Structures are given as C-alpha cells and as structure tokens.
C-alpha cells in the first residue's frame, strides 16, 4: 500500500478520509514499513467496510492486516443496531472463534530440555492433527446441541478440565444466546468426528519458552517469568464453524442487505430475521471452538502427566480472534450497545474492565499473538486507551506476507524441519508441503507487528515467547 495515499496522523496511525459512499473514515495502525508491505486490497476492503450501515467511529485495520474476505484480516468494525447496523458473515470469517489459548506449565526450560523429544512425540500421538484426523468424542442424539449451547462450560462438565479454567476464557467459556437450531445439519455432520482436533493450515500446538520480559510488573501479575515454559494452542471451530460460515455467506449474498460494493461483504441488518439467525448460529460455532480448545487442553495435560508428571498446566488465557461480540462503548459521550466485529483481531480490554475476571482486574486482558514455528509469539496486555483507538482491539498474529503458492516455490518442508531442528525447535507434522506453506519466511516480522501495536497504544508488550516444540496440523 502506498503511504502517500494516506493521511498520517502520527507515526503509527494513518487515515483514509471519507469519500463517496464511506460513512466513516478508515484508520490503519502500523509503522510505515508495515503499511508499505500491506496489500492494496486492505485499503479497498477497509474503505468498503466503511460504507456499511450503522458503522461507528471508523473502520480499523490492525498492524498485521492483510487481504481477507470482505473485511481485511486484522479488521475491526462496530455497528449500532439502533442505526440500522449490520452483521457480516465475512466480517467474522469462516473459522468462527478461531483463537489462541496459552497455558502455564509450572516448569522452566531446563526441566523440559531432557524430555522435549519424548513430550513432542506424546503430544503428536495424543492430539489429532491434520486432514482426516478424528477425535475420540462421538455425539449421540442431541448431545451436539448441548455442546453448542455450553462451549467450554460443557466440556468441563464432561470432565475435560476444571472450573478454574473457565474464568480465564472470554465470556466465562460460553457464548450466551447460542442457537443450535440455526446451525444446519450439514454443519453438525461435519463436526461429528472433529471434536478435540487441531485442524491444519496455520493451526498449531506449541511448547514455548519465555525468552524476554518487557513489563516485569504485569508479567508477575500474569505469573510469567524468564525461561518459563508455556503451551500455546491455535485452532478454531473446525468443520462446523466452516460450514456455518459457508451457509450464511451464501444466504446473505442472496437475501441480505444490498446493494454493497463487494459480494464478500454480504451482511444482514442485526435486527432482521436473517441477522438474528446468523448471530445464534455464530455463537453456537463460537461454543464449538471454545469446547474444542478445552478438550485439546485436556489432551495436552495428559501428555505432560505421561512425560513430566510434576508439571501443572493452568490456563493463562483464551482469546478468540474471529468474532462478533456485543459490547458497550462510548459514542458521542453516550454508552451504547454495539456489535463489534473482529476479523483476525483480538479484544484488548484494559485494567478494571467489568468483563474481566477479578484475577485480571489489575493487569488487563492478555492479548495472545501467534507467530510462526521458527520465530516468536507475544503476550501483550490490553490498555484502557485502546477503547477510544479501536473499540479495545489489537492485532492477532504475524499475518502472511507471502502466498502459499509462493512459499512452496521457495521452501521445502523436510529441509525446513532439519534447519529448525538445528536451532533446537522440534517440529511434528504429517505434511512436508504443509510445513513449506507455513514457512516462517512467509510471514511478516511479528516483532514489528507487536511493537507497532504497543507504539500505537492498542496493547503493551509483556513477554516474548520462542518455540521449542511445534505440532503442526
């Protein structure tokens, strides 16, 4: 993207003033090199989002923004139903409630090192990953609907984890007002064998080392110290979520709000029958993702018990980064209930926010930034300033800088695994081409993304994590 075509408001804030059908400006938070690297499609998609009815303040792009579906990935937009606001299936994404979960382990890297290959094998054996892998859970009768209503709360009630886990998950582990009856039978059928599976593509399970602490006070509040071992899980709502996205995108294209500048922006008024059906189905898919990450957590704990029994895996936090949530935000001095879309963006509530559990009131909400299998991940913390900047939102990952086709021309999976092994990073995968497509070099510099998020005021860096073991789907 050409920065000359934008109005620069500060080192990390760029505006596109409203023209044509745009109802609000578009705002990009990033340093100049990241802006230059962004696809021109980000600008096009962001200005399209700014034309949608009921949009408030601005259409936002986070530092990791790239070309998405209607909305850019790394896009944030909030809509007021009182002003004809809309809900967009593309604005949530196909992998509804895809997110990242981080777990403490209670051990440091010196304790892990002698066991890491055994642990990598145990994780690879226990956590179904990749295409065609199946989970151990079989639903009977209407059991799947109970899971879709309860999310991680359902999973804990089934014995997957503990009630203490739930307070460290957004919305206490369950999206309320989920409506399984608005989820198609096809979507439920796609999920029949996929509970507790990691999936493929950019999804992963990593054991990581805390390599750097940026804010020792917040790190202490989160229970993080240098050289601690943590586990990160990145996955979403699996086949069910993908089918809900497919079903409702199709319906919104033919029956939703129009005219729109891009079919991929297909949406429906929040206060319409279609809008309400999608919301109910989307929340059910959110619960599927939360239950899935909870079950995987249980499987990870099993692997640690087998290999390092002294480890204690407590949930640090679980964030979803493909969502639409109802939140209260101040518009023109008035607190209003808005529908905040975050497509490839993470909520970043600051300290004292009423939605946070008591144990995080002093620190704020952890913002978990996934990196790549060869580089870094980050834990950031939400700021109160981000409310006025971006409806309390920050980035979600490194973001791709190169297509999958280009990546497979440049890298070979087997060779990459050898190179990472020489650096002490163990990869477990069933697909060499999958590893090549996810090569670290195909992603933006996550350090620059995390720094831009901090400099823009969206969230503050707490810890940098480096991979030790990576199980790829």
């Amino acid at each position, binding site marked *: 993207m050409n920065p000359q075509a934008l109005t620069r408001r500060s080192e990390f804030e760029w505006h596109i003033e409203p023209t044509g059908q745009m109802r609000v400006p578009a705002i990009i938070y990033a340093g100049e090199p990241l802006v230059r690297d962004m*696809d021109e*499609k980000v600008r096009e998609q962001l200005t399209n989002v700014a034309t949608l009815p009921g949009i408030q303040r601005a259409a936002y792009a986070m530092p990791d923004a*790239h*070309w*998405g*579906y209607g909305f850019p*990935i790394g896009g944030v937009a909030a809509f007021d139903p009182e002003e004809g606001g809309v809900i967009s299936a593309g604005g949530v994404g*196909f*992998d509804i409630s895809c997110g990242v979960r981080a777990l403490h382990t209670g051990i440091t890297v010196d304790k892990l090192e002698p066991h890491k290959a055994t642990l990598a094998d145990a994780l690879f054996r226990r956590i179904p990953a*990749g*295409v*065609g*892998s*199946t989970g151990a859970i079989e639903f009977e009768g209407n059991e799947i609907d109970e899971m879709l209503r309860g999310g991680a709360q359902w999973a804990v009630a089934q014995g997957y984890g503990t009630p203490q886990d739930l307070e460290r998950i957004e919305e206490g582990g369950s999206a309320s007002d989920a409506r399984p009856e608005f989820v198609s039978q*096809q979507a439920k*059928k*796609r999920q*029949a*064998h996929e509970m507790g599976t990691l*999936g*493929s*593509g950019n999804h992963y399970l990593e054991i990581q080392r805390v390599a750097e602490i940026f804010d020792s006070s917040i790190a202490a509040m989160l229970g993080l110290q240098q050289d601690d071992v943590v586990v990160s899980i990145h996955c979403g709502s699996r*086949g069910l979520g*993908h*089918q809900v*996205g*497919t079903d409702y*995108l*199709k319906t919104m*294209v*033919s029956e939703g709000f129009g005219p729109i500048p891009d*079919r*991929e922006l*297909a949406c429906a008024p929040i206060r319409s029958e279609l809008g309400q059906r999608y919301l109910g189905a989307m929340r059910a898919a959110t619960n599927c993702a939360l239950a899935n990450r909870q079950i995987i957590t249980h499987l990870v704990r099993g692997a640690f018990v087998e290999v390092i029994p002294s480890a204690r895996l407590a949930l640090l936090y679980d964030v979803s980064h493909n969502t639409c949530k109802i939140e209260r935000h101040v518009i023109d001095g008035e607190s209003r209930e808005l529908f905040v879309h975050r497509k490839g963006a993470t909520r970043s509530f600051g300290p004292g926010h009423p939605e946070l559990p008591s144990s995080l009131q002093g620190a704020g909400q952890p913002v978990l930034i996934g990196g790549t299998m060869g580089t870094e991940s980050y834990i950031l913390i939400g700021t109160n300033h981000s409310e006025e900047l971006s409806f309390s939102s920050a980035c979600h990952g490194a*973001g*791709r800088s190169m*297509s*999958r*086709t*280009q990546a*497979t021309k440049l890298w070979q999976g087997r060779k990459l695994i050898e190179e990472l092994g020489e650096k002490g990073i163990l990869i477990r995968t*069933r*697909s*060499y*081409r*999958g590893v090549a*497509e996810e090569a670290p070099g195909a992603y933006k510099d996550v350090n620059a993304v995390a720094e831009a998020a901090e400099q823009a005021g969206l969230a503050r860096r707490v810890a940098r994590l480096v991979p030790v073991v990576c199980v790829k789907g």
Partner: protein
Amino acid sequence: MLSLESMARWEHFSHGSDIGVRGFGESIEEAFEQAALALTAVVADPSYIAPNEMVEVHCDAPDLELLLVSWLNAVVYEMDVRTMLFRKFRVLTSGCSLIGTLVGEKADPERHQIVVEAKGATVTALRVERDEQGQWVAQCVIDV
C-alpha cells in the same frame, strides 16, 4: 502452478493468506470440473488418488458464479464428512443447477501426502466467464 496431468487444465493463483483455484474448459461444465480438480490439488496430489468410489451431489444458485461456489463447497463438504479425496469430476448443468459426480477414495494422510484441509469456497476473485480466446474460466479463492 499449472497442472501437468494429461487432460487437466487448471491452475492455482495467489491470494494473500489462502489460495485461488482456476479451471479452464470448452464448456462451463468442463471449467467447473477442472476448478474442482484444482481444489483437490490444494489438499493433496491428485495423481495419488485412486478412482474407487463415486458420490453424486446436486447444487443450485441464483447465478452461474454462485453456482461455482455452491459446487466447490459441495466438494469440500463431501471431502470432510466422508474423509475422502476425489480426482475425477463430471458436471451436468441445467440453467443455474447442476448434478455433479465425484470419484475418489478414502483419504490416507501418509499415502496421499495431504497438505491442508479446505474450509470453504469464497466469493473472493469469483469469476465464471469466457476469456478472449473463447474458453470458459471458472475461478474463486478457497479458504484453507
């Protein structure tokens, strides 16, 4: 990537985070069949897939472009729920409806060198039209 398999006329094209599929044909039907083969090639190498089992699907849509999306999503759905991969496709259209035949076998992650699962076909870069040479082109981006 242009396919080298005989009779295959498809290619992949770049998208920021996912992958585009493009099928060519003398007819809409052939272009749709080739786009489906390109979809299979996103997931695995089609040449390793044996034509052992047949599945039939029915699709309809308001226009030809959305019919391509429905068709590819039907293939994604059958791959997922049957844990199968398909290498031969036959399409018969009638207006904006189609009957498709998919031929393939159970997916075997080791033997088929499976790369990634397809989440769904999108309306991004969606095009069904004749090109300047008069051949049909059917394309869209697949979310993986």
